[in-house]
């Protein structure tokens, strides 16, 4: 599970630099954006009780917001679509400082949300993006996005089918079969997780880890089933959870055709997939009960590689060095994963020694580093 949309990264910047940066960005033009460009950032003045953008209408395309926190509490800025899904977010803007958020906003209605104190519903203001965003800078990006949407749909359906089998095994009280089906049911999901996360509400329902549970929150999704099967050793009581998982995955499949997918979000998502690996999977935290982390890691790598493959024609033209580096580092990583695979699939992560985990971690880092430059390279 990953709770933060990637765009925050681009927005993280020392407040003191923002003014200077904007001047510089003005000089360079927003040539790195894939859509239309604004002359500068839209200032959003945030206090403890108000959230006031300098304008309520922006030109569609890549839009930069600068949250100036004039309040007394740490603030956050979100841009939301009408369905409440998150376009982008900027967290942790301290009192007296400012933080920048850069998002792709096709023409339409949006909500700006400030969250003084970083909790609760925050303060919402409507904002509209108008005009047609200029076409993507490279004509090859359009087909890549279309192909990726197809991939996402296929993988979402893969997980849905897997979850249905898992549900049936749970309903039949067949513990051994349910345990055998658990990891493989997640493969499709893990390949496309960043897209699923963009829907905001689905990810916590489907993939929340016990460690990320807030008090009072109802725990649902795969990891509830994982704990039941692998820790408690029973299918008892899991059927309603499995039913709900199937429903939520049906929801995901239904929403994929309308998912906001761009070359930028694809590239950011690929980097996010490997960040996920580095953050919770190398440590074995993700699959705390089943220890099927290697299956997840392989699926994450598959998902990242799919993006790189689809963007390769553009990348090769724009940054051949980066293309080579990505290819070889992903191949290295795959080689290490293949080394762990047996005829029975991947072994339990508990059998992977500390030295082997370190080797794997270094290979993940080696691929993550060039992946972090993919967005700028394809969007430039």
């Amino acid at each position, binding site marked *: 599970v990953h709770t933060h949309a990637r765009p925050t990264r681009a927005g993280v910047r*020392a407040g003191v*630099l923002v003014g*200077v940066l904007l001047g*510089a960005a003005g*000089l360079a033009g927003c040539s790195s954006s894939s859509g239309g460009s604004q002359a500068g950032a839209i200032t959003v003045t945030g206090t403890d009780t108000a959230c006031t953008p300098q304008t309520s209408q922006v030109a569609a395309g890549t839009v930069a917001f600068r949250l100036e926190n004039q309040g007394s509490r740490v603030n956050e800025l979100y841009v939301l679509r009408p369905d409440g899904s998150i376009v982008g977010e900027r967290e942790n803007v301290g009192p007296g400082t400012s933080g920048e958020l850069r998002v792709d906003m096709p023409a339409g209605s949006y909500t700006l949300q400030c969250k003084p104190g970083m909790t609760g519903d925050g303060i919402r203001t409507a904002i509209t993006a108008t005009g047609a965003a200029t076409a993507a800078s490279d004509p090859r990006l359009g087909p890549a996005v279309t192909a990726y949407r197809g991939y996402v749909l296929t993988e979402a359906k893969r997980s849905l089918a897997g979850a249905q089998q898992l549900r049936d095994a749970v309903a039949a009280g067949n513990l051994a079969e349910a345990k055998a089906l658990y990891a493989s049911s997640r493969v499709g999901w893990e390949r496309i997780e960043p897209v699923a996360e963009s829907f905001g509400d689905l990810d916590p329902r489907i993939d929340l880890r016990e460690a990320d549970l807030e008090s009072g929150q109802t725990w649902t999704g795969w990891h509830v089933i994982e704990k039941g099967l692998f820790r408690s050793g029973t299918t008892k009581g899991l059927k309603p959870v499995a039913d709900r998982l199937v429903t939520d995955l049906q929801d995901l499949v239904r929403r994929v055709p309308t998912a906001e997918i761009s070359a930028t979000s694809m590239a950011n998502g690929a980097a996010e997939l490997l960040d996920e690996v580095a953050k919770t999977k190398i440590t074995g935290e993700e699959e705390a009960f089943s220890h099927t982390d290697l299956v997840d890691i392989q699926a994450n790598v598959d998902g990242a590689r799919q993006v790189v493959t689809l963007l390769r024609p553009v990348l090769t033209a724009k940054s051949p060095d980066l293309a080579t580096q990505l290819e070889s580092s992903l191949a290295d990583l795959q080689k290490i994963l293949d080394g762990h695979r047996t005829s029975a699939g991947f072994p339990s992560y508990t059998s992977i020694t500390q030295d082997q985990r370190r080797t794997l971690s270094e290979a993940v*880092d080696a691929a993550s*580093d060039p992946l*972090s430059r993919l967005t*700028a390279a394809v969007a430039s």
Partner: protein
Amino acid sequence: VSGPATGTSRRAALGLLGSAVAAGAAGVTWAVRTGDAEAAATPGTAVPFHGDHQAGIATAVQDRLHMAAFDLRVAGGSSGRAAVVRMLRQWTGAAARMTQGLETVDGGAAPTILDAPPEDTGEALALPPSRLTLTLGLGPGFFAKTGLDDSRPSALVDLPRFKGDDIDPARSGGDLVVQACADDPQVAVHAIRNLARMATGTAAVRWSQLGFGRTSSTTPTEQTPRNLFGFKDGTNNIAGDDEATLNQHVWVGAGDDPGWMTGGSYLVARRIAMRIESWDRVSLREQEDVTGRHKISGAPVGATAEHDPVQVSALPPTAHVAIAHPDANGGVRILRRGYSYVDGSDGFGHLDAGLFFIAFCRDPRTQYVPLQTRLARSDAMTEYLTHTASGLYAVPPGVRPGQYWAQSLLEA
């Protein structure tokens, strides 16, 4: 000390950024250290990166240390070597800039492209150069993994196991080591962090150590610092401006083998856990007899002033100074440059504290190894010490403008 470099400082870079971005990279002229060793430097200023010898050895000891060792991830042979050369070129460029108070690359922390992560991580922005020095060493594995075993100096031995050693391999060795010393720990950490980041894919951090409160001085005119036993340490250390002694005991000479090491040195790193709780229960007389010096004045036991000559025969025979003194070791001297550390607690109700011992010498086979063999066997202080990590590294000679670290080895 030579004059400050004329590059834009991080502090100035902030104010100038707008114009600097417009004007492109500001021209950077490098100050070069001459063969002369350095006297005490003013805190906060820049130490020249380029010179005959690497900075951070004869340089007046800064207050803080961050040292990190790296394992190369490359396949052996020439393709691996090419990747290492690429990394060392990048490291050298960034190191030369960071030591002058600049970002790793021009505009690195504040790029105009917002879709990519900044090249410089930014936490040293607006901080003065803080006398940052970055010193590179090569471990035995470096030569194997770059197909250069034939060029491995015979002096770069695998250190023997000394009596009482309890060495943790995970905290020892490494194919490369970088010693970052600065008056501000944030500047030292920023440097190591950014070098580690640049190395991604080619080398990965093996171990890392923070140190504080320099325990040795290379500037005898200044007050001698104290170690965690509370004693002055390094009273008779080699002075950074004593060129004759440096040439005799620290720098690899032109006639020494191999030629590419001329002007270099060997770095010994030893993490020495100090049982400070036990030490603190020992009487002052015992502490002084174990050390061989008076605690307050630093004078040899029986003498009155710190710099009074040490007469080995007048000291308790197993006192630390009696065993370590050049007179007891055929005149052998080493340049010490260690730092104290406290790495949390030991899980038994004690601080995990000690000395991160760093020394430089011309040939460890005739200097550090026999010296430590004697200390481990006879030094009364050993009762309070355990060596828990170890490393020996060949320190290539200094870098000239336009060159990169270890170029004399890699392009021999």
